[in-house]
């Protein structure tokens, strides 16, 4: 087989593999139990909760991750490589381990003090947001740094020589130029937050109608042999993920750089 066809066959095979997985779900879809599961209040609650928690977690991750990504991209400072390595911690340790670490933290004197002040995280919705934030913040920062790295610092240099403050140069020049990559980073992080399971279930538990997000609901549905509900949620997650990721591909205007 020619070189070109070997490579293309691998790409096609991978596509068919994932497509086959999704299509196999449809084998059980469409029955009466299917529609019931889709409209069940707990299902609808888990959808709403997932979207809300992932959106908030992503907002926080961007609020901290964007400046951090800028610092990593543009400045030289002590501990830069250490920080860069730490961003990968959520990726290298299992999400369950991350959730367990958060749970342990809220049992230390500092963690208990925070909860005593009325900020409840363990087995509460803020716990879901925190767990998702912990999982995606490192990734979001990494992705946004890569987008900023693509924009030559010389644009900002010129903007500053023309009288822009560093803030103005950032939002008038760097931010619009990197917007395409930044939006894609945000969408990717959000999709990862929506699908987060391990850390969330460890810190916030799996209480239907209270802390049950979509992935957790899939797990509990399977555990109680509710196949219809599991399939509804899996299909919903898949559609949500594919639409947002495909959207990320199409976002932003493409500039030709010099």
């Amino acid at each position, binding site marked *: 087989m020619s070189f070109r066809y070997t490579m293309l066959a691998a790409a096609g095979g991978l596509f068919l593999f994932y497509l086959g997985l999704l299509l196999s779900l449809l084998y059980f879809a469409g029955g009466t139990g299917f529609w019931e599961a889709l409209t069940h209040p707990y299902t609808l609650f888990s959808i709403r909760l997932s979207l809300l928690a992932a959106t908030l977690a992503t907002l926080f991750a961007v609020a901290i991750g964007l400046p951090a990504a800028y610092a990593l991209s543009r400045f030289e400072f002590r501990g830069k490589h250490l920080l860069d390595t730490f961003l990968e911690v959520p990726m290298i340790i299992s999400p369950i381990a991350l959730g367990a670490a958060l749970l342990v933290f809220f049992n230390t004197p500092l963690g208990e003090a925070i909860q005593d002040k009325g900020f409840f995280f363990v087995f509460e919705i803020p716990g879901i947001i925190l767990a998702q934030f912990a999982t995606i913040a490192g990734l979001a920062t990494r992705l946004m740094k890569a987008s900023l790295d693509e924009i*030559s610092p010389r*644009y900002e*240099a*010129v903007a*500053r*020589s*023309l*009288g822009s403050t560093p803030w103005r140069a950032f939002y008038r*020049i760097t931010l619009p130029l990197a917007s395409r990559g930044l939006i894609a980073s945000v969408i990717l992080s959000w999709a990862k937050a929506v699908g987060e399971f391990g850390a969330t279930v460890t810190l916030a538990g799996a209480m239907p109608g209270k802390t049950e997000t979509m992935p957790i609901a899939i797990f509990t549905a399977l555990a109680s042999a509710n196949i219809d509900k599991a399939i509804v949620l899996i299909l919903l997650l898949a559609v949500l993920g594919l639409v947002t990721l495909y959207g990320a591909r199409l976002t932003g205007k493409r500039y030709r750089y*010099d």
Partner: protein
Amino acid sequence: MIKIENLTIILQSFRIIDLCLAIDEGQFHFLLGPTGSGKTLILESIIGLRKPLKGRICVGDKEVQDLPPEQRQISYVPQDLALFPHLTVKENILFGIKARNLDWRLYEGHVQALIEAMRIDSLLDRYPANLSGGEKKRVALLRGLAPKPKLLILDEPLSGLDPSIKADIQHLLKNLHASFHPTTLCVTHDFEEAYFLGDEITVFIDGKVEQAGKKEEVFLKPASRKVAQFLGATNLYRAFVLAQDEQSQRWILGIDGARVSVPMYLCRNPLQVGMEVDLFIRPEEVMILRKGKPVKESLRKNVFEGKILDIMDRGRDYLTFFQTSKEKIPFEISIPSYAFRNLSLSTGQTVSIALREESLWIMR
């Protein structure tokens, strides 16, 4: 007046120690140095993007070395231009005026005059991606000049252009400077560019200023062998001062057994008999003597006989490789094409050459 005093930058392998520069108002000043000599580091320090180890930078009466770039009023046009790709030409041009919150009414006439001088009226609504190389250069220059900076900094403005566009931009820069007189510091490694456009040239080699002054001065009277070599000089010889002729006010130099007589004014430094010096003989000022024609008195002091080893046609001139018969000293002689045709020279031919006084320069 822009003054840079004792600028010191040490970064990795670059060591720039106590650099001093003075640029008069309205002057086109060139910082000329080989590629990789740290010129861009100097620019970045002047603009304020890099903190030098020490040094004073004065723009007018104001010391700016501790100010951020946006407060220095120094416009920067980098080598890659960095036109903002998401803004139209017009938005690019007005960027500096808006960023500084300047009163547009006071700048409108100035910007309009620049737009006309640069011939970019028809490009204002385009994006940089839709401009040619030459158009981009013009827009970048205009963007730098629009807010009337105290100093305009250009980093290799003519690099990477086709020869025809290069000539166009070169003339444009010259005319622009003649009509608007922006105080300009331009960095380049190209001496011809600096000579054509510049008023004054600072030659910067290996982290040090080797020579600074009027361009003619630098070209005709290089301060050292290093400068002469950087300017592309050939015919550089190590020579000894053999004698001093008080009566005719000349030095007699020895090069590998040959004697060259040089008027004393053709050296900047005091010399003494026995000293080792460098003698620079300008290839375009060496004459090939035609047989049977009388030789002028001033040329008779330095006449050598020898052989033509090779001739290279360079289009505009012929580069002739000559070697003296007795001492085997090589010379490169540049002969304009029209003159070459009259001489009918060929390889292997024995001829006599004479050194015009204008061809000589002694460096200590």
